[in-house]
């Protein structure tokens, strides 16, 4: 299921107290320290000048009023210099606090997003296992296998130590097992046929029936394997899916490569199996944290659920299903994302960047660089990072691998009803990347004065800017008045002139330097804002891609459902009724679909999930609809089709529909021409809006910012869903900046954007798809007014 909740926002930066930056703090860049020292020495130089001025006043003038006037000017200069010194310190404080806060927000959120992506994925998996464990193919298979087993066991003592009895025992113990292996099965069959002649009269009939029943078991087991393969072909994020009988013997799996080793294995002592048997009803499942299993060499992340008699939610437990999630593959994908790339080789993560996951006790379970942060070991980071408290996003500086770094961590908070496994995600970023000074000013596309006035610059910086400019004027007026005053003293004033000149120069130098710093801060603010928007847009497209991947998996799986192909092959009213009921059941669990429809090869809708629409839909021909046509053209059950967001006659009252479709093949075959099409109508706008609304930027206090909007555009850059119907309505085609219009799959861009005479900053990311789901060439955009 996919419902989006708000992600926690990084805690607001501490405005005062512990977060002050001393100029000696190692995070302060060399340039800034030099800069600061210059200003301080200039301003400190003013005080002796003023003292000198006061002395000179006494020398050049005997008039007490004149002396007082000069002394007064000097005092005012002194007080301004003192104030400027304070302001300079405050500026650096603000500058570094703002940068740190932003980075905490950007990287802290990234660390959180990584664990959240994993949690969201794992939540979907919990739905999978419960749904699949209820397939009749599996309960039938286990049921029959177990019954036949019992009967065979009863036969063993009767056969006794006769030659036939010995062969029987041998056959039953033979690996590969008779339930799965055709050869062993036929040996057993021969043995039973033989026994049917030798055994006492009363047991002959039983041996004969068993001889045919074991063939049935073989068929059922192989059908179970087929179904598991079908599932795994649709949901490619599992390494294996297995079915075990109540005594722990694996009788079916989905992975052909490992089948010969896996089938017949007994996993009765493995925790995931025991927990699955202990579930109370069909709604329960067990999520096993990473563990060693006999099935795999890698650590396994197993979800399990009980298989119940007659596939009834409340039936007796007769076995268990275990699904082996491709944790390592998924983790690698998540960890490698959001990382700075080597400029030469884009495949390599940049030096000094690390991302890894730890389990509830702080042991590394996956790492972006296994050579440095080894899975299975404790990472070399502080305790508070290894196992952070729930809801906290700790950030600290440390030397990691010989490099000054910032470490960001986030602990899972689960997702919806999935509590998570207590894991944490960590991101290590070289410190110089955080406090890097902004250099580019020309490519911003906005004048520095406009930027200073924009809403991006925090109020406090604007106030400081105003104060610095005001002080600059005051000092200028004082020194100019001093020069005027001195010039009127004629020859006597000559000594005073240079003093005021010096004050004037110092005032101009320091205030203009401070203005520069404020401008640099504004540019930094802009760049970080752009970065944040880029990240938000990336998050928006990633979440959507993953969601749509699940839709692509669903449709492939459902297209193989036997109720659907049965109804199409034998089109009776009863079969259509059954297919429709099946759709209703599916739709009941998968609420993100507005409807499910089944169309025959002529494009007539023959069944649908929503009973109220059934009559209306029956008269519709979908023969010319892209979703129908492209699904009819598929040749394999692992293929699916999708109709991009557009108007559909299946939903006349909806503006736009997103339809996934898959070909239905007779007998659930994996290849061949479809005999009809299943279409699923995704509740696109609801789901998209949910995702978009979580990807809107927040201010420093975690509040939403007025005027921000997020929207998706299709391959023609037409808006297909939006959070702001007023300014960015659906259907609007945007004239995006060139860089945003030319994005390739997986790329992001950010910059200035003018829309309806309003200026915005814009971050965009184009879909890169997820696993084998390539995406629909959509782009996610997030805008913030300036």
């Amino acid at each position, binding site marked *: 299921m996919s419902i989006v909740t708000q992600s926690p926002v990084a805690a607001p930066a501490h405005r005062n107290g512990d977060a002050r930056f001393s100029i000696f703090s190692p995070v302060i860049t060399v340039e800034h320290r030099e800069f600061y020292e210059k200003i301080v020495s200039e301003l400190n130089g003013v005080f002796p000048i003023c003292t000198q001025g006061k002395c000179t006043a006494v020398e050049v003038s005997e008039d007490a009023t004149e002396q007082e006037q000069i002394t007064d000017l000097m005092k005012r200069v002194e007080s301004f210099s003192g104030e400027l010194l304070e302001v300079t310190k405050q500026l650096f404080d603000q500058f570094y606090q703002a940068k740190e806060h932003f980075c905490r927000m950007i990287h802290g959120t990234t660390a959180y997003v990584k664990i959240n992506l994993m949690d969201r994925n794992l939540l979907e998996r919990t739905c999978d296992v419960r749904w699949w464990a209820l397939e009749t193919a599996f309960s039938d298979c286990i049921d029959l296998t177990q019954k036949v087993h019992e009967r065979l066991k009863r036969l063993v003592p009767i056969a006794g130590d006769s030659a036939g009895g010995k062969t029987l025992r041998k056959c039953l113990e033979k690996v590969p097992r008779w339930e799965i292996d055709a050869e062993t099965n036929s040996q057993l069959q021969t043995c039973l046929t033989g026994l049917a002649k030798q055994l006492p009269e009363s047991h002959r009939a039983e041996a004969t029936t068993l001889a045919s029943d074991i063939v049935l078991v073989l068929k059922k087991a192989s059908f179970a394997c087929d179904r598991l393969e079908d599932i795994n072909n649709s949901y490619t994020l599992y390494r294996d899916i297995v079915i075990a009988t109540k005594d722990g013997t694996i009788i079916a799996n989905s992975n052909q490569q490992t089948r010969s080793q896996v089938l017949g294995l007994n996993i009765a002592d493995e925790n995931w199996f025991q927990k699955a048997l202990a579930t109370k009803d069909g709604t329960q499942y067990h999520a096993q944290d990473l563990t060693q299993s006999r099935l795999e060499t890698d650590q396994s992340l197993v979800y399990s659920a009980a298989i119940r008699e007659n596939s009834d939610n409340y039936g007796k437990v007769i076995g268990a299903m275990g699904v082996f999630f491709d944790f390592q593959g998924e983790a690698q994908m998540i960890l490698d994302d959001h990382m700075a790339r080597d400029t030469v080789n884009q495949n390599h993560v940049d030096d000094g960047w690390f991302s890894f996951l730890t389990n509830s006790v702080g042991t590394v379970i996956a790492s972006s660089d296994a050579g440095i942060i080894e899975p299975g070991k404790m990472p070399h980071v502080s305790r508070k990072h290894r196992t952070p408290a729930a809801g906290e996003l700790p950030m600290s500086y440390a030397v990691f691998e010989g490099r000054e770094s910032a470490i960001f961590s986030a602990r899972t908070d689960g997702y919806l009803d999935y509590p998570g496994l207590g894991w944490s995600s960590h991101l290590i970023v070289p410190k110089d990347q955080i406090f890097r000074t902004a250099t580019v000013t020309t490519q911003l596309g906005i004048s520095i004065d406009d930027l200073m006035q924009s809403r991006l610059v925090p109020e406090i910086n604007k106030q400081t800017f105003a104060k610095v400019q005001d002080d600059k*004027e005051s000092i*200028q*007026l004082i020194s*100019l*008045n001093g*020069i*005027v005053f001195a*010039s*009127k003293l*004629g020859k006597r004033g000559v000594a005073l002139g240079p003093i005021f000149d010096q004050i004037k120069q110092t005032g101009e130098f320091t205030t203009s330097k401070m203005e520069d710093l404020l401008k640099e801060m504004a540019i930094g603010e802009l760049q970080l804002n752009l970065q944040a928007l880029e990240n938000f847009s990336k998050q928006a497209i990633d979440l959507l891609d993953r969601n749509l991947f699940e839709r692509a998996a669903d449709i492939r799986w459902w297209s193989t459902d036997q109720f659907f192909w049965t109804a199409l092959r034998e089109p009776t009213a009863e079969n259509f009724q059954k297919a429709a009921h099946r759709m209703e059941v599916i739709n009941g669990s998968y609420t993100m679909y507005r409807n499910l429809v089944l169309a025959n090869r002529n494009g007539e809708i023959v069944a649908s999930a929503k009973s109220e629409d059934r009559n209306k839909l029956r008269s519709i021909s979908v023969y010319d609809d892209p979703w129908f046509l492209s699904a009819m053209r598929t040749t394999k059950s692992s293929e699916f089709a999708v109709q991009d967001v557009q108007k559909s006659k299946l939903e006349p009252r909806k503006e736009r529909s997103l339809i996934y479709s898959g070909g239905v093949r007779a007998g659930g075959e994996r290849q061949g021409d479809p005999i009809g099409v299943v279409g699923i109508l995704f509740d696109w706008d609801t789901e998209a809006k949910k995702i978009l609304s979580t990807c809107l930027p927040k201010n420093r206090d975690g509040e939403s910012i007025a005027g921000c909007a997020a929207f998706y555009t299709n391959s023609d850059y037409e808006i297909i869903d939006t959070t702001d119907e007023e300014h960015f309505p659906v259907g609007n085609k945007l004239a995006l900046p060139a860089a945003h219009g030319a994005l390739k799959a997986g790329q992001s861009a950010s910059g200035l954007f003018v829309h309806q005479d309003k200026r915005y900053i814009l971050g965009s990311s184009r879909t890169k798809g997820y696993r084998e789901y390539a995406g629909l060439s959509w782009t996610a955009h997030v805008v913030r007014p300036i």
Partner: protein
Amino acid sequence: MQIVTFASAGGVHGIPVLAVEEFFRPIPLTRVPLADKRIAGLLNQRGKSATVLNLRQCFHRPTGEPALHPKMILLETEDHLTPEARSMGVRSFADPVVLLVDRILDIVNIDRKDWQPRPAHITEQFVSGVVRHGDGYICLLELPTLIDDIFSPKA
């Protein structure tokens, strides 16, 4: 000769430093009803009442926008001019007058021989000449001409 330069009406202008009594930030004015538009009002500085001239309004074709934070220049009265100033030919006015300008720029030293006569395209009579400074020209203002024109205009 030391000249104080300031910006007003889109141009750079200069007057002798010795003709200045003080620079300050604007203080509240008393508007004068029915006065010439060039007169911004009256103010009271150190117990003396002074007339404030809005220099921008004195030009025929001002450009740009008036500054958000303008500055005021209180001129010396004729009787307060230093002997040095008189000897250099600096002239002023009998009553206190304040110039309202956009920004005070700098104090510069210029040589009398660099002065050039007022170019033909400048029609303002109170511009007595121009002098090259840095990248541009400074218009030198002849204060008595300006003030006379306002206070006792020729019919």
